[in-house]
């Protein structure tokens, strides 16, 4: 892998494009309008193509304004088609942006005969070509694409900084925003305008298809990781910057391992973004699949172990069962057993209780240890206090009490337990006259 000055420019262009897109895209994600980004990025194509044809050049203000105008018009059209065409939002976007995109493609096919433009660059971008088109700014020769994107990022940063609280309110609660004098419709079209401008600016780097990844994936990833708006935006931008660096490294570094030539940087950037999202999706501290699964498994385990302890505690009260022990089949057959259907729950629960030293096994019969008795008494106590509560204060019938209490006993944390104990201080028996232990 050879890293040259060209690679610096490519990474910088990718980073600037990624950061600009991530910043506006984050608000599209929050506004639940992600696909509007897709629609606009496609719809600007005829604007860009017309500008090519009219001026024969790729970078000028006319193209920017034209493309942005078409982008905003498409946002208006989507709304109009939805309202008057009796279509849902998705269908309305589908109608508008595919038609505009198709018009753009035809125009570009025409234009390609006259000017230096390739449809595949339009679709996927050509960040590798960015360093070849230089402009001179304040005596410095820098790639035109980098200059354009730097300006775009500054504009986006400025708007988000100055209108931070207005954007926050208008994207969260448009109705209230409007009554407070922050016109949510105007803010919506401001966001659409920024999206259109950013899409055009990032066009050379990522093209009109991959730009949707740049707009949406950073915000979608940050949404899983953050709980406040400022960190949400910061993480979105950070992810985009990291993806630019790692994407280009991957594009020029990885294919040679397998004997191929280096691959598309914009494609690699989008892939890296996808990987970031996958990692957050799986491993986010609270929202991630792993954390959720772990919490769910923990809850299930605590339910089955509490159930098993409860049964052993009841067995210990049975005068016909002097040592209070139960065999594995007793667990499945005793009255009130939640283990009636075959399942791994009982096996896991008993194994766990043995490992914790709460249950001992003697001649294939399970009984509570000293410590186990304390834990089991607590389970039974909470259960019977709940029965008392439902009977005394909920008017629940005797026959329904067990299942009602069973629902809640597993979710009773220490606060709730204390409240329950305080409410029934001095109460010694449950509604059926069984002793409340403890």
């Amino acid at each position, binding site marked *: 892998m050879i890293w040259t000055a060209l690679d610096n420019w490519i990474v910088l262009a990718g980073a600037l494009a990624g950061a600009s897109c991530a910043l506006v895209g984050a608000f599209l994600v929050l506004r639940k309008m992600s696909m509007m980004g897709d629609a606009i990025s496609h719809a600007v194509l005829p604007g860009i193509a017309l500008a090519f044809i009219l001026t024969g050049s790729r970078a000028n203000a006319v193209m920017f304004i034209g493309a942005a105008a078409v982008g905003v018009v498409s946002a208006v059209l989507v709304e109009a088609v939805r309202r008057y065409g009796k279509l849902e939002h998705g269908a309305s976007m589908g109608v508008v942006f595919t038609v505009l995109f198709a018009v753009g493609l035809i125009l570009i096919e025409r234009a390609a005969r006259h000017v230096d433009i390739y449809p595949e660059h339009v679709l996927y971008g050509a960040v590798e070509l960015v360093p070849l088109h230089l402009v001179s700014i304040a005596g410095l020769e820098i790639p035109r694409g980098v200059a354009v994107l730097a300006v775009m990022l500054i504009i986006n940063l400025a708007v988000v900084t100055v209108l931070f609280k207005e954007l926050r309110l208008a994207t969260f609660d448009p109705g209230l925003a*409007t009554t*407070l*004098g922050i016109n949510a419709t105007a803010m919506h079209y401001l966001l659409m305008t920024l999206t259109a401008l950013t899409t055009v600016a990032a066009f050379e780097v990522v093209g009109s298809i991959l730009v949707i990844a740049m707009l949406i994936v950073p915000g979608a990833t940050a949404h899983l990781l953050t709980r*406040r708006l400022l960190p949400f935006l910061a993480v979105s931008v950070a992810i985009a910057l990291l993806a630019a660096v790692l994407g280009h490294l991957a594009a020029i570094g990885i294919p040679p391992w397998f004997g191929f030539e280096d691959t598309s940087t914009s494609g690699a950037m989008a892939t890296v973004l996808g990987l970031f999202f996958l990692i957050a999706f799986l491993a986010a501290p609270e929202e991630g699949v792993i954390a959720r699964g772990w919490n769910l498994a923990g809850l299930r385990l605590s339910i089955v172990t509490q159930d098993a302890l409860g049964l052993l505690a009841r067995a210990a009260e049975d005068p016909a069962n002097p040592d209070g022990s139960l065999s594995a089949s007793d667990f499945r057959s005793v009255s009130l057993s939640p283990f009636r259907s075959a399942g791994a729950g009982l096996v896991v629960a008993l194994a766990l209780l043995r490992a914790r030293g709460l249950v001992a096994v003697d001649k294939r019969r399970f009984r509570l240890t000293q410590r186990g008795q304390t834990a089991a008494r607590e389970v039974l106590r909470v259960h019977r206090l709940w029965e008392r509560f439902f009977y005394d204060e909920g008017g629940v019938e005797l026959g329904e009490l067990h299942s009602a209490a069973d629902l809640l006993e597993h979710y009773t944390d220490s606060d709730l337990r204390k409240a329950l104990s305080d409410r029934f201080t001095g109460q010694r028996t449950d509604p059926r006259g069984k002793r409340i232990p403890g």
Partner: protein
Amino acid sequence: MEGQTTSVNNRDLEPATPSAPPALHVRDLTVAYHRKPVLWDVDLDVPRSLVAGIVGPNGAGKSTLIKAVLDLVPHASGVVEIFGKPYRRQRRMVGYVPQRESVDWDYPITALELVAMGLYRKIGWCRPVSARHRRRALEGLEEVGMADLAQRQISRLSGGQQQRIFLARALVQDADIYFMDEPFAGVDASTEKAIIAILQRLREQGRTVFVVHHDLETVHEYFDYLIMLNMRVVAAGPVAEVFTPQNLKWTYGGRLTLLDRAVDAIGQGSR
């Protein structure tokens, strides 16, 4: 029009004295989606310093009435005045509590930040929320008993808690007239009590509160004034006067089938 015969027209009610214009004055308000009207010819003159319920069956246009007053949906016709002046000039005096389901509760903000939104008009464009504003928002949270959850992300709150912070946000707006869209929807009993206490306090402070409500059993207990709505104002006035079996029947009963059919016919015609 067919509906007029069943309407207790509130022009029959005592007119507001010229010195104190009514809190809310609505004349000939009609709202239509496409060409199908959802609110017809609404006339209201609601005095100040009271809690007014807005009741009616699903699809009666209760939310639409609030949104039309607040200029959030376009009117086909009509005049709306707040304390005698057009709504647009009185925005500062008006507070709004949208339906809880109308926003995305996964949005990355804390309870305190949500409440501070009520201060955005006072803070002004392009200026950040300062420590002083955060203190005011915290006071708002205290008023609804939520100060200890100020830093919690809003998705981590229960439905009742979410409704309370919505209310806190309205309180810090310090408005003279409030429009609340179903503040009792899906809340627990203690939150309902807390909200009622707040509504009564607002009234004692001389403010006027409009509440879209569903539970007819609590109408007597909660409201001084009632607007019974079914696309038109069936009746509007002090609860004791208008909350009658006859009006209930007109609001919820089958008497409107003819009107419904007329509306359907108009809807058909526009297709």
